[in-house]
């Protein structure tokens, strides 16, 4: 392991690897990535692979548009098949309030070039054969959203970064970060220390622990989110289907499996990743209500990952006041994977070329103290 680096990225998840990959492409390779487990150990390897542009704020919609553009090129650029399939996202509204939210979102998304449209329950049944639309008022559908397989996306980015000279260390846990005055000088791990003046905190659910090593308190809280996968079926389901009344989402992977999860309002913040029967039961009830033809399909496996949630549902990005050279890229909740390509690129531009982006001001840690918070309401699952 290297004993010094210009930049150390804590967290070998999609955010850290996307940044490492972009930096390396710009010729900045004196970077070490530290991952406590294997690649795909954290939320980046545990999510449903949903990639959508149907968001509620201009920032998130534009970032997601950029991410979709980058995901479309990723397989060719990394030589890993990431199974990106743009089958769309279909959101179901069961009440008037949700319906008008979807309608307002659609207008904003259309203005920014995302072709979302409102579809009647009848039209929705044409998009998803067998969809039970009883009780559904209206749906929002964007055919350019999609799903991908998270693992190869991570491996591809890791391979590109490594080939260009970035060092990625798996099974390496950060135990301390040392400072001289306000300046970072060293990252200590269970496999040795690295002298550096800059640290990116891309540790997802563990970000608050990394920040605490430097006396910085993040408001992020980890929440367990569970997910399941069914046996592979002949391709029949194009879009990701999401019911906004209970936060259910599921799609068909390129392997043919139905993969999805559901929100649980009773889940408390914890570092728990055990599976529960409660989830299995609630998710299967919801799947059965939405798509009765899934009744006989067998569930194969369930698991859990974390949402690294902030009080306003938006990430924490950029430097902090208390420590020089300590950069946050965390708090992505359930949408880190889909935002990562755009965030990695902007963060690399910002680090290397001082190219500013409004998100660094809008989503800095200081916003919570200042009270300048605009909540992202479209966090699903």
């Amino acid at each position, binding site marked *: 392991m290297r004993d010094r680096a210009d930049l150390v990225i804590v967290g070998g998840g999609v955010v850290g690897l996307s940044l490492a990959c972009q930096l390396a492409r710009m010729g900045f390779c004196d970077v070490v990535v530290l991952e406590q487990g294997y690649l795909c150990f954290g939320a980046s390897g545990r999510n449903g692979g949903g990639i959508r542009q149907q968001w509620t704020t201009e920032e998130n919609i534009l970032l997601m548009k950029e991410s979709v553009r980058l995901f479309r090129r990723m397989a060719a650029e990394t030589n890993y098949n990431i199974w990106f399939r743009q089958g769309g996202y279909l959101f179901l509204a069961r009440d008037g309030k949700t319906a008008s939210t979807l309608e307002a979102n659609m207008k904003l998304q259309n203005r920014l070039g995302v072709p979302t449209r409102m579809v009647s329950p009848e039209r929705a049944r044409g998009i998803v054969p067998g969809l039970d639309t009883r009780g559904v008022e209206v749906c929002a559908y964007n055919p350019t959203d999609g799903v991908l397989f998270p693992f190869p996306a991570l491996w591809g980015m890791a391979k590109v970064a490594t080939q260009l000279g970035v060092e990625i260390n798996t099974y390496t846990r950060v135990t301390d970060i040392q400072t001289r005055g306000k300046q970072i000088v060293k990252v200590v791990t269970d496999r040795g220390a690295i002298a550096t003046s800059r640290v990116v905190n891309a540790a997802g659910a563990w970000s608050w622990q990394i920040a605490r090593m430097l006396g910085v308190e993040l408001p992020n809280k980890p929440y367990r989110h569970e997910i399941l996968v069914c046996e592979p079926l002949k391709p029949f389901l194009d879009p990701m289907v999401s019911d906004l009344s209970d936060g259910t989402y599921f799609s068909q992977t390129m392997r043919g499996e139905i993969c999805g999860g559901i929100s649980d309002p009773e889940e408390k913040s914890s570092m728990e990743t055990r599976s529960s029967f409660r989830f299995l039961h609630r998710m299967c009830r919801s799947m059965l209500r939405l798509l009765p033809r899934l009744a*006989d399909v067998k569930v194969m496996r369930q698991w859990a990952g974390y949402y690294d949630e902030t009080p306003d549902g938006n990430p924490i990005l950029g430097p902090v006041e208390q420590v020089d050279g300590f950069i946050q890229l965390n708090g992505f909740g359930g949408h880190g994977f889909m935002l990562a390509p755009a965030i990695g690129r902007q963060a690399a531009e910002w680090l290397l070329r001082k190219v500013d982006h409004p998100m660094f001001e809008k989503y800095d840690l200081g916003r919570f103290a200042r009270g300048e918070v605009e909540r992202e309401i479209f966090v699903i699952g």
Partner: protein
Amino acid sequence: MAKTIVCRCEDVCIEDLKLGFEQGLRELEELKRHTGLATGFCQGKCCIAHAARFLARLKGGDDMVADPPRTRPLLHPTPVYRLAGELEAEPEGDGEP
């Protein structure tokens, strides 16, 4: 060349594990994700022990068996309607898929 299949559900051969090992994957958690090993219908019940033994041999040293990946429910693939608490499946339409 003869193929030795280690995971029948996902058609993973000993050669696939060897290749992964040569690329630097040292744990079954990693090999599982790279090859699809143990993610098929048997959920690892038929293949994990073989793979663990083979990986231990590749690693050398005194350990007879490598650490298995974390075991995940379900023990056996189970229909959605049963988990939803329904007594029988009543598929609509033509019953597909």
